[in-house]
Every structure is written in structure tokens, then in C-alpha cells.
């Protein structure tokens, strides 16, 4: 038994919270799902190992003395996962500052808050590290199986990167907090986190477009230009890569350096987290100023009132803005490719699926927010409007937003190739409408701030939405390339929608509606 208020006591408390939180996220709060989730997790691990085996089946074993291109590729992979971890950790730090939950209880207790925050920072590092290990681990396992246990050192590198990324996230967020104050940091940090998450991938793609004219990151990394300008093969810069490739000396050096960095940052900043959290909770009330003071109410129908409300809420949602920014950031490389295609005179079929996929994902998120994430369901339900009109207005708001984001891209593509623009527009409309329909069929009542966890409420909805976007993207690509296979792919996409509809609770709701029951009874 550990004494209350000690570091170990806080660790136990945090672990218990983290475990119940993870369990509730995986099972959507239903205990009867625990076995299914465990089975799903084992199946996922098995599948990932199969994918890793298939991917690495023809790779040569790399010795302890790798060449420069190998070191470049491994370092790029490490930076890629590092940027994702940094983004995730920044979001976690922001949450610590701004989510009240148990903070008020702990800060008002005599327990030393710095210990709690030190434990929470460590928990962040553990969480981002574990997340990466789940995705990268199968590849490491296969490499270790084929090339020897030395490959397991890569797990140590992931741990080292997670410690470094978490420490950097703390420094970045605290710097933002001190520079622009608690009122603006939340939004700024979320946008920065989103930008960092995509920055490395996008940067590589953009460099690839300029150097090779494609979005292939690998082609760029293997290019003579990068090899010629990289640090020398014996540089300290490659130590993390060497550690990942099984060099134990590099491993010890990288692990020690990252752990020391993490400890110094935690010791320096954990005692101040309480002040930051208090400052964040004391942010003065947000005012939008007096610009609307004398503006009269506008002439509005119920539908336009609903659409306007949805637009305002979407525009004022920092989390959503950062996520949308992320989507737009990922559109930068294709936009650049589009611009390059003008000068090169080529036809960018590759752009169509990117637009369609992004539109499907964006529409899915927005549809969840407007349909399921209604913060005042009673108010809307007591309004004198038929429920179908309410839903229609909400879906219109989603499609309007998607239209605003993608219209400039379609216009650009139209200048390049009207046919492809038309195909892309069709794909975007189909993917967005499908994603919105799936969210409609699987709608549930939730709060907007549960947006991050929307995928846990229905796995079928999540997978249907993803597969629907993918198949519509494939349909559009085939159509843009002039292939008749597009028809088959479109039928496949419609089939996915039909399956989702069949499995949806909406179908059950309709079946058990009073009208249907009465109809069935009358038939009987």
C-alpha cells in the first residue's frame, strides 16, 4: 500500500483512470463488449503482422553497418512517427490545462499537485509511445523474427522518441501559453498540433513534387540530391537510426539522452502546471464584441435558422477548425501538384481520389457533429418543424461546408481538365452524401465535446464510412481514367451503403415504429 499523495499513489490513480477510460472508449461503455473487443484486438494484431510480413517479404536484411540511403529512410520514418507523437502530446498537454474534470478536486486538496502533473506528463509519454508501438510493433516483430533480436532495439527508439516528443510538446505549449496567454493558447495549440502532425508528411510530399514531380516520398528520399546533401555517414545525426537498426551503443546513448531531456523538462515545468491550469480556468468570458449590437434579426425560415446555427457552431469549434485545417493541409500537396501540372501540361488523375477521400472524411465528421452532436436536442425536438426537415437542414449545412472547402480545388481542376473536374465533383458529392447518410442511420445522442470519441459508438458506422470514401475515391479515379470498371466500383460503393443501412439501428427504429407495427398487425 502506498501513502496518499506520493508519486506512486498518483501513478496508481492515473493508471486506474487510464485503464477505465480506455476500456470505456473501446467498448463504448458496454461491459458485454469486452470479449469482442479483446478478440478484435488479437485479430487486428494478427492482421498487422500479416501486413508487415507481406510488406517485408522481399526486403534484404540490413547489417549493423547500413549505407546512407538506409539511414535516411529509417531517420525519415522516425521523424514521421515523431511528428505524429508530438502532435498527439501537444493535444494532451492542452487538454490537461483546459479540461477541468478532476483538476478542481486535486488542486483544492492538500496533495502536492506537481507530483500529479509529473505523473500525467509521464502518462502522456507512455500513451503516445504505446500508440506508435501498436502500429509499428508488428513490423519490428517480423524484422526481429527474420533478422535477429537486435531489431527489438527499435522498440527502445520508439520509447525514446515518445519521451522526446512529450517533452517538446510541454515546452511548445508552455511557450505558447506564456507568449499569447491562456485565452488564445487553446486554439493556437490545437492548430499547431494539427499542423505538426501533418507537416512532415506534407513537407516530404511537397519536396517530392518539386524534385520528382510525384507525391512519392520514397522516390524523394532515395534521390541523389538528398543523399548528396545528407550529413556524413558517421554523423551523430544517424544515431537514432543506428539504434533502431540494432546498434546497442547508439541505443544506450539515444535512450539516455531522451530520458535526461524528459526528466529535466518534467522537473522544470510540472510544478508550474497548476498555475497554468488555474490561469486557463480563469480566462475571462469570451465576447464577440459589439459588432452585432444593432443588427436586427434576419428574415429566416426554420431551415435557414438551423443551417445558420450549424455554421456558427462549426466555425466556433477550435477542435473542428484544427481538424479541418489538417484536412486542408493534406490537400496542399495535391494542390501543388495541380499547379505543377499546369506548367508541365500533364493530367493529374492522382488528384481525384485525394479530393474524394478528404471530402468523405470531412463530411463524416461534420455530419456527426450536426446530427448526433446536438447540444440542445430537446429544444430542436420541441420546435414546430417535422423531424425530417430538421435532418434535411442539418445535412444541407454539412454539404454546404464541404462545398465551400472543395469548390476552389474543383475550379482549379476544371481549368486543367473539365472532365476530371466533373468526375471529382461527382465523387465528392457521392462520398459526402454517403458519409452523411451513414451518420444519419447510425445517429445517437451525444455532446459535441465527445467528437473525439465518435468512432467508439459504432464500429460498423466507422468502417462503413471509411470503406465508402475509399470505394467512391476508386470509382472516381477509374472514371477519370476512362475505365468501365468505374461502374462496377460504383456498384460496390452502393453495396457498402446498402449493407450499412441493413445493419443500422435506423432500420430497427423504422421496423418498430408505431406505423409499421400497426401495418404488420393489420396484415396479420
Amino acid at each position, binding site marked *: 500500500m502506498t501513502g496518499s499523495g506520493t508519486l506512486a499513489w498518483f501513478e496508481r490513480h492515473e493508471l486506474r483512470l487510464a485503464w477505465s477510460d480506455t476500456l470505456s472508449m473501446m467498448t463504448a461503455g458496454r461491459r458485454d463488449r469486452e470479449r469482442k473487443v479483446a478478440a478484435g484486438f488479437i485479430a487486428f494484431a494478427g492482421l498487422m503482422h500479416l501486413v508487415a510480413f507481406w510488406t517485408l517479404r522481399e526486403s534484404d536484411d540490413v547489417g549493423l553497418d547500413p549505407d546512407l540511403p538506409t539511414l535516411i529512410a529509417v531517420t525519415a520514418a522516425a521523424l514521421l512517427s515523431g511528428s505524429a507523437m508530438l502532435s498527439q502530446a501537444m493535444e494532451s498537454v492542452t487538454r490537461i490545462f483546459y479540461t477541468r474534470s478532476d483538476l478542481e478536486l486535486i488542486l483544492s486538496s492538500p496533495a502536492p499537485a506537481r507530483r500529479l502533473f509529473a505523473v500525467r506528463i509521464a502518462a502522456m509519454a507512455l500513451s503516445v509511445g504505446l500508440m506508435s508501438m501498436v502500429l509499428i510493433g508488428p513490423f519490428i516483430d517480423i524484422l526481429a523474427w527474420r533478422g535477429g533480436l537486435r531489431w527489438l532495439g527499435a522498440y527502445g527508439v520508439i520509447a525514446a522518441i515518445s519521451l522526446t516528443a512529450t517533452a517538446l510538446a510541454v515546452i511548445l505549449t508552455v511557450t505558447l501559453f506564456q507568449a499569447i496567454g491562456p485565452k488564445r493558447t487553446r486554439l493556437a495549440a490545437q492548430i499547431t498540433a494539427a499542423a505538426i502532425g501533418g507537416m512532415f508528411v506534407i513537407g516530404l510530399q511537397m519536396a517530392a513534387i518539386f524534385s520528382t514531380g510525384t507525391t512519392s516520398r520514397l522516390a524523394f528520399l532515395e534521390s541523389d540530391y538528398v543523399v548528396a546533401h545528407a550529413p556524413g555517414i558517421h554523423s551523430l545525426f544517424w544515431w537514432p537510426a543506428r539504434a533502431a537498426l540494432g546498434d546497442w551503443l547508439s541505443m544506450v546513448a539515444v535512450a539516455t539522452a531522451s530520458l535526461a531531456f524528459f526528466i529535466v523538462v518534467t522537473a522544470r515545468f510540472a510544478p508550474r502546471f497548476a498555475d497554468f491550469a488555474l490561469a486557463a480556468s480563469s*480566462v475571462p*468570458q*469570451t*465576447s*464577440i*464584441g*459589439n459588432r*452585432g*449590437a444593432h443588427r*436586427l*434579426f*434576419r*428574415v*429566416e*425560415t*426554420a431551415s*435557414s*435558422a*438551423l443551417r*445558420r*446555427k450549424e455554421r*456558427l*457552431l462549426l466555425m*466556433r*469549434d477550435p477542435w473542428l477548425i484544427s481538424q479541418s485545417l489538417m484536412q486542408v493541409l493534406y490537400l496542399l500537396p495535391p494542390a501543388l501538384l495541380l499547379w505543377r501540372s499546369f506548367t508541365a501540361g500533364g493530367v493529374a488523375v492522382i488528384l481525384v481520389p485525394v479530393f474524394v477521400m478528404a471530402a468523405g472524411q470531412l463530411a463524416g465528421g461534420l455530419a456527426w457533429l450536426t446530427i448526433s452532436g446536438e*447540444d*440542445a*436536442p*430537446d*429544444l*430542436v*425536438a*420541441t*420546435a*414546430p*418543424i*417535422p423531424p425530417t426537415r430538421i435532418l434535411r437542414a442539418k445535412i444541407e449545412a454539412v454539404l454546404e461546408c464541404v462545398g465551400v472547402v472543395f469548390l476552389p480545388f474543383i475550379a482549379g481542376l476544371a481549368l486543367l481538365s473539365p472532365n476530371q473536374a466533373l468526375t471529382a465533383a461527382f465523387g465528392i458529392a457521392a462520398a459526402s452524401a454517403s458519409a452523411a447518410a451513414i451518420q444519419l442511420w447510425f445517429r445517437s445522442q451525444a455532446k459535441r465535446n465527445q467528437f473525439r470519441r465518435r468512432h467508439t459508438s459504432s464500429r460498423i458506422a466507422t468502417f462503413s464510412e471509411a470503406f465508402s470514401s475509399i470505394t467512391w475515391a476508386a470509382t472516381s479515379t477509374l472514371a477519370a481514367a476512362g475505365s468501365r470498371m468505374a461502374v462496377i466500383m460504383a456498384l460496390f460503393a452502393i453495396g457498402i451503403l446498402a449493407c450499412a443501412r441493413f445493419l443500422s439501428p435506423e432500420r430497427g427504429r423504422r421496423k418498430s415504429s*408505431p406505423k409499421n407495427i400497426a401495418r404488420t398487425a393489420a396484415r396479420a
Partner: protein
Amino acid sequence: MLLGPNGAGKTTTLRMISGLLRPDEGAISVFGIDALADPVAAKRIMGWLSDEPMIYDKLTPIEYLEFIAGLWGVEPAMADARARDLIEWLGLGNHRHERCEQFSRGMRQKVALAGALVHEPKLIILDEPLTGLDAVSARLVKTVLAERVRSGSTVIMTTHILEIAERMADRIGVISNGRLVAEGTLSELRDSVGTGGSSLEDMFIAIVERDSAAA
């Protein structure tokens, strides 16, 4: 005024009248409109306020009221004037252009109440409207409701504060185990219970205990 022990069915009753729940059987008539057959027509003349104020954190009180006026199709100039009056009346004038996200519970309750009144409903349904309000705000809300009743509206509300029921209610209904077990004016209830000049609290307890014993 609807009274009843916890879990008696007060909120369920109000939610059925407001069109938020569909009864298994029976009928609901709102000013002669069959609320089950034509819910949209019934909702047009109703205003609903739940015990947990449901407002949008990212909207300002004025934007919230503009949204509600749009939903109920109130003529904009009229809605604008009413909204501004209500906001001032409820003491939210200095906060009308601030987003509701950091409002106290009492302020949120006032914004939600303004939302229930902005379309001037003939029937105002309120579930525990005074919960979380300070004495001054509670007095203000009672004044607003009394004013609405004087101007011809009907107010149905639930409360656990029997003193309020005693002071404000024209008619009192007592719900127990999902049934309306007593209904009438204060003096009618006294007569039915046979407790003479006893307080509403005594009558309420007597009615509920009688019903529990009968069940």
C-alpha cells in the same frame, strides 16, 4: 403546478405534452389541438424549458434567441424587440454578446427561459425552472411567469419547493407512481384531504402516503 415525489412521473408527463416522448396510450389535447395527431401545430403554441438548461455554448444569448425565433417562424422585427426586452428583463443585458460557454448555471437557466418565451407561447411548460437560481433571479423568473399568466398564457411547471406552489399556483396536481392522484386549487385539495388549515407540505405528504398505502 405539478408536484410529486422523485421518480413519480412529473418530467415524463411534461415531456409527453411537449412532444418529446410518445405515450403508450391515451390522448393529449393542447388548446383543442390533438398533440399526437398534429404535433407540429401543438408545438407552435408551446414553449418548453427542461430542468437542465440546454443552450449552445458557442452562441451568444442574442444569437440563441434569434435561432429560436427562426425555428418558430417569428417575424424578425418582432422577435428582435422581444428578445432584447427579455434579455434586459432577465438581467442579461451586459452579457448579450458574450458566448454562453462560461455562464453560470443561473445565467444559463435565464437564457433558456428567454428561449422558451421569445415566441410568446400560449402554453409554457417548465420543468423545475427555479433550480440553481439565486433569490433575486428566482423572484425575477416568478414575476416574468406571473406577467405571462396575466397576459393570457398558461404555465405548467413542476417544482420541489412547495412554498412556491402554495404562492404561485392556481391549480395544483399531485402525481404519484405515474398517476395524477389529486388535482385542484389549494382549498379544493385541503377539502379532499380533510386536513383543514394545514400547509401544502402536510397535504402533499398525506396524499402521497395515502396513494402509497393504496398501492
